[in-house]
């Protein structure tokens, strides 16, 4: 049950089913798998929620997850997390679960393909101006690009593009390297060491999901920050007068 040989570095190259120009490769299939897992899982858990002291252990798990994400977002953005939770939480859970499921034999993490990670990074790339415009207005957001001087405009634009690329390649490189190391070790010492590297892969998978979400949050927070600083200034002025 191994879909990928050692020589392929992307699950995009593994085609399951093809009809004309339309083909379903391993990345799409496993992304759908992860989506189905998340949707069915959360549907099963949230079907009967209880607000009393007695609750199922799965509800407890979800509450810990959501509460943890809310706390982290609140720490980073210094704001109420509700408007950010949908986007950041979804990205975090998707990456986390697609990395975690790699303990299932035969599964190839969709995040080990540059297409998936590029799509996620483009989502962040689009979300930053959306949140920025929502809190600063179009002109206010565009003004951020010519700060501190208009000379910085090209550097700000390049920075925006390069951090998107960095987000995509970082996640892809980490997950893909973990997979390749396990595959190489399987060929050399198949007894115990692949398991150890799998454990390490779980750790890196968690950290990478966390880092992706935190970086997305930091980028969004930096786009909406000017607004908040101005608000705080105004409040201080109001208190003085």
């Amino acid at each position, binding site marked *: 049950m191994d879909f990928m040989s050692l020589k392929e570095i992307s699950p995009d190259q593994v085609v399951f089913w093809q009809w004309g120009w339309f083909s379903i490769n391993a990345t799409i299939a496993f992304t759908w798998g992860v989506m189905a897992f998340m949707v069915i899982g959360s549907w099963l858990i949230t079907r009967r929620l209880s607000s009393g002291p007695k609750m199922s252990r799965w509800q407890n798990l979800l509450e810990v997850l959501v509460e943890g994400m809310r706390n*982290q977002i609140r720490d980073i953005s210094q704001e109420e997390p509700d408007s950010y939770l949908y986007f950041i939480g979804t990205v975090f859970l998707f990456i986390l679960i697609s990395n975690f499921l790699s303990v299932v034999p035969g599964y190839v993490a969709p995040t080990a393909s540059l297409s998936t990670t590029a799509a996620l990074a483009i989502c962040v790339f689009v979300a930053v101006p959306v949140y920025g415009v929502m809190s600063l207005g179009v002109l206010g957001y565009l003004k951020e690009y010519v700060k501190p001087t208009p000379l910085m405009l090209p550097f700000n634009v390049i920075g925006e593009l390069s951090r998107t690329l960095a987000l995509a*390649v*970082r996640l892809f*490189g*980490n997950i893909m390297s973990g997979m390749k190391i396990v595959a190489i070790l399987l060929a050399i010492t198949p007894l115990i060491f692949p398991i150890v590297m799998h454990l390490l892969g779980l750790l890196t998978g968690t950290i990478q999901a966390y*880092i992706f979400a*935190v970086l997305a949050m*930091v980028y969004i927070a930096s786009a909406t920050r000017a607004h908040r600083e101005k608000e705080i200034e105004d409040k201080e002025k109001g208190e003085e007068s």
Partner: protein
Amino acid sequence: MDSISLIGMASIFTAGITIAIGAIGPALGEGRAVAQGLASIAQQPDETNSITRTLFVGLAMIESTAIYCFVISMILIFANPFWDHVIKAGG
């Protein structure tokens, strides 16, 4: 020397050099960052949470340079476009 062996030789050599040099810089940088982070935690144990979070994010940023080198060397070894082209042209 024909082009296949030339390309193979150059790719393997470059892949090794890439990952070797690419590992040195981030290793030194991460060592410094972790040492400084531990020193800060020892000084201010109350701030452990925010120090750890910033440290992890910073480590990921530093590490990404090594990951770029790794991806380049992987492409050179497993998905080298010049190698594929020569193989295809040669039949």
